[in-house]
């Protein structure tokens, strides 16, 4: 029995018929054959006979021409697919990355800017690490320094808000740095990738001047929201509009298909800061999500970590039994910051006894910082500032819009 390779033409004798098709793969003990009708079937390997191995398909070279009069955008890819191509012969989906491919998949992009692309990583976003954030920040900074009108980062949606927050803390940018992804895979005609890509490119040439996430604002293809990188959270596993600004309205919207941009007065404007990078991160930081009955033994030991972010209950509480353990940590130099697992609203540890006890042992109130953003901020602050008093000050101050003095009305 010949060894079959994906793409081999085969003939299968099955159900009394001879069926021609293409061998795809072995799966769960069956040979998966793509019939000429397009259907895949899984059949016993022995039913199929090798016919021929077709020569590899050469894709036609259809290079696209970029308009040099348009602003220049840099696209950095970390693994999120902005475009993909299906090989209907095998059914395989490959994600596309060079500028030609992207422009051919999303022709509308060519009217907005010209593009340079750089593939930094090809990983699932759950495999992101602080070290990769640092490389990403360095790459973004380099593109800014090279004069990009804006930078687009394509990213898996799972941890996009972590990465965007990290870049926001590490890089001072005078131009938009737009994180974009898609919730529905790029290989489907209904994918949100096209609209998200067009809106993110539009945002990247807009008067914005900060790090943002651009994704669908509603389930309809009607507009994308521009979210501040430090205030956005993925709030749904699968919906297009999973990304939501928490505690503030989005920085703006890009309407679709008109691609009109509407920035709120709060959005930082292009040119408001000089490009700079401080990429140090102290990875010895933890985020701990409190729940009733959680044993104090789940806390890191004294000296184990440099920074600890707690996602407490309500206004920022943990059980009273935790306080001596936290005091021990704090006394040993662990910086502790309190955030709320409610996600919305503000930590206020002045109201109840537990909170006042926490303040007494030196826990820092995280204001309305999101727990995940607080973790990233903690890594950055501890990585760049060694003086404990200054660390406290930085952690209590809004550096990149991650916390606010006022809580707006929306929930």
């Amino acid at each position, binding site marked *: 029995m010949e060894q079959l390779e994906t793409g081999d033409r085969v003939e299968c004798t*099955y*159900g*009394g*018929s001879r*069926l021609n098709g293409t061998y795809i793969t072995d*799966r*769960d003990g*069956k040979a*998966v054959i*793509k*019939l*000429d*009708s*397009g*259907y*895949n*079937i*899984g*059949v*016993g390997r022995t039913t199929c006979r090798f016919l021929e191995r077709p020569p590899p*398909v050469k*894709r*036609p070279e*259809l290079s696209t021409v970029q308009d040099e009069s348009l602003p220049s955008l840099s696209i950095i890819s970390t693994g999120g697919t902005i475009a*993909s*191509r*299906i*090989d*209907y*012969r095998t*059914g*395989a*989906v490959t994600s596309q990355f060079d500028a030609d491919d992207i422009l*051919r*998949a999303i022709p509308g992009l060519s009217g907005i800017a010209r593009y340079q692309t750089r593939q930094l990583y090809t990983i699932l976003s759950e495999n992101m690490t602080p070290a990769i954030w640092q490389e990403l920040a360095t790459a973004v900074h380099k593109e800014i320094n090279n004069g990009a009108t804006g930078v687009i980062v394509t990213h898996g949606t799972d941890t996009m808000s972590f990465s965007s927050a990290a870049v926001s803390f590490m890089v001072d940018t005078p131009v938009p740095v737009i994180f974009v992804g898609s919730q*529905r895979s*790029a*290989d*489907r*005609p*209904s*994918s949100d990738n*096209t*609209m998200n890509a067009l809106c993110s490119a539009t945002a990247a040439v807009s008067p914005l001047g900060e790090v943002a996430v651009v994704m669908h604002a*509603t*389930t*309809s*293809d*009607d507009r994308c929201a521009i979210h501040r990188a430090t205030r956005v959270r993925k709030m749904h*596993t*699968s*919906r*297009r509009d999973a990304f939501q600004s928490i505690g503030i309205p989005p920085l703006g919207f890009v309407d679709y*298909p008109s691609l009109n941009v509407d920035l709120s007065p709060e959005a930082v404007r292009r040119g408001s800061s000089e490009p700079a990078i401080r990429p140090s991160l102290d990875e010895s930081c933890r985020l701990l999500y409190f729940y009733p009955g959680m044993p104090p033994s789940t806390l890191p030991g004294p000296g184990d970590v440099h920074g600890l972010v707690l996602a407490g209950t309500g206004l920022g509480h943990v059980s009273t039994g935790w306080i001596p353990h936290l005091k021990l940590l704090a006394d040993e130099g662990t910086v502790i910051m309190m955030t709320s697992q409610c996600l919305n609203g503000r930590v206020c540890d002045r109201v109840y006894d537990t909170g006042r006890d926490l303040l007494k042992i030196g826990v820092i109130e995280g204001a309305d910082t999101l727990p995940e953003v607080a973790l990233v901020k903690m890594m950055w602050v501890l990585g760049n500032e060694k003086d404990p008093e200054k660390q406290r000050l930085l952690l209590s101050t809004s550096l990149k819009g991650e916390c606010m003095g006022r809580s707006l009305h929306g929930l």
Partner: protein
Amino acid sequence: MDYEKIGLLAGIEIHQQLDTKEKLFCRCPTLLRKTEEHSGEYHRYLRATESEMGEIDDAAREEMKSERKFTYYTYDSTCLVENDEEPPAPLNQEALVLSLTIAKMFGMTPIEQVNTMRKLVIDGSNTSGFQRTALIAINGTLPNGGKIETLCLEEEAAQRVEGETFSLDRLGIPLVEITTSPCMHTPEEVREMAGYLGMVLRSTGKVKRGLGTIRQDVNISIKGGARIEVKGVQELDLVADVVKREAERQQNLIMIRDKLVSRRASVQPDPVDVTGLFAGTGSAILKKAKKILAVRLDGFSGLVGYEIQPGRRLGTEMSDYAKKCGVGGIFHTDELPAYGITTEEVNALHRSLGTTENDCIVLVAATPKQAQCAALQVVKRARLALDGVPEETRKMLPEGNTAYMRPLPGAARMYPETDVLPVIVGESVWDIIALPELLTARARRFSTELGLDDGMARQIAFSERLPLFERSVSEGINPTLAARTILGTLKEIQRDGADVSMIPDDRFIEVLHEVESGKAAKEAIPEILKMIAKGTGTQEAIKKCAPSVSREQLHAIITKIVDERAAFVKQKGNAALAPLMGVVMAEVRGSSDGKVVSELLRKEIERVCNS
């Protein structure tokens, strides 16, 4: 027509909705809703995805000709899967077993490992832009010796409300698609096989019934013609007509092709801008248009206007192509002067284009962009006329004609649905699948075993209410009473405005039991069921419509009536029976069985006559 001579070949693709509890890839009910009950709406654009070859499927490209915004209605009975906002749930097991059952009924071979595919469909009817479909079995046989090629399990598409608006209630209902080989040779044979397929499907007792729940596509070709797929023939009775008309159309197109060839006809590829020519026209449509383009068809004169199906000409086919660009239609000189366009204008047109009476000119009037698109579509269709019959997907028109819909899909644009894991169909599963009795066999059995007459037996076997009949009989109701009430009474009271869907099976059977035990008269059944349909309890309905009259009371009533009319009775004798029956029945208002009344009445009449 001699179909053998013209070489008619036809096959059927039948789509039947399954009556499962839940949809194929989500846990929503398979419930059709009224659009006014929709709970929300959203809208999307769909984009054809690029293939490995850098090409977009022809059919898909055609759908994309104009930027289309699709609107979808959601319901409290639909979920994020229909919205294409959540990965599909695993393949519905009930639907899988049901489709395997059907496959087994046709003697097919199941696929060992079922792989769900995505088939591109970007006409808006699938929110994802593809239809999920899985090949379940192959190689079955038909009674005519023909072959069933494949049986697929698919998800139903969303129902179009109007324009580009779709309703999501139907999306995702499981559907079996059964494809025969082109093994039928006459229109009647097609009709017969379609009927057979439907009967087998309904024999499972688990398929949806009613308008739109089963749809036939018919593939038709004649010798020298081309394969045409006619979509969505919903009524069985039209199947044969469609085949006949299509055969006629192909014959005519071949005739036209032959004439064009002999005339050395040709198509001028570049449309000519004649907007200026009609600056002062009296034609409302031309006056309104921003751009008027003319397509020159040399040697086509008379053939563009030639009728190829009743009321449809080659020009109509061109118009169908042009309409894909959003224009309302076209004009061609075979039908001019007309529509406010004068002879002078036609002459001027010929002069301006340098054409003669042998040539035909097609006019397209619209916005510049639409006009350009439409004119090129006319060129395309005109060129195809030089080759004869183009391969097309066509839709059925009400009378059995067909109209162009889109090119035949090329190699099906399919790729794996990675969100759905493959399912192994083991031999153990296949072996334990029991084959349901065919409806035809059941009709025979009802006739022989239950004593129904043949017509009624067939009617009840093929009725949607077969389960109610079978249950009634199994609970001891007289089969004829049950069948009559189901086939007759229910239909009657529905015609009278009762909502029979509001009558629960339990209640229906309870009423028949009460009738059989003499608690209510047969005559009262319609009134009782009407009340139950309005929500009244069974006993209360019986009490109101048929206050139970004891035999003694009935006797008293009859005695009174007969005594009061003693003279009449004496005069008429037994002939008084019929008139007095009416009087008594009116008095007892259906609460007594007619047979009992007649028996008592006869005795009383005898008494009086004999007195």
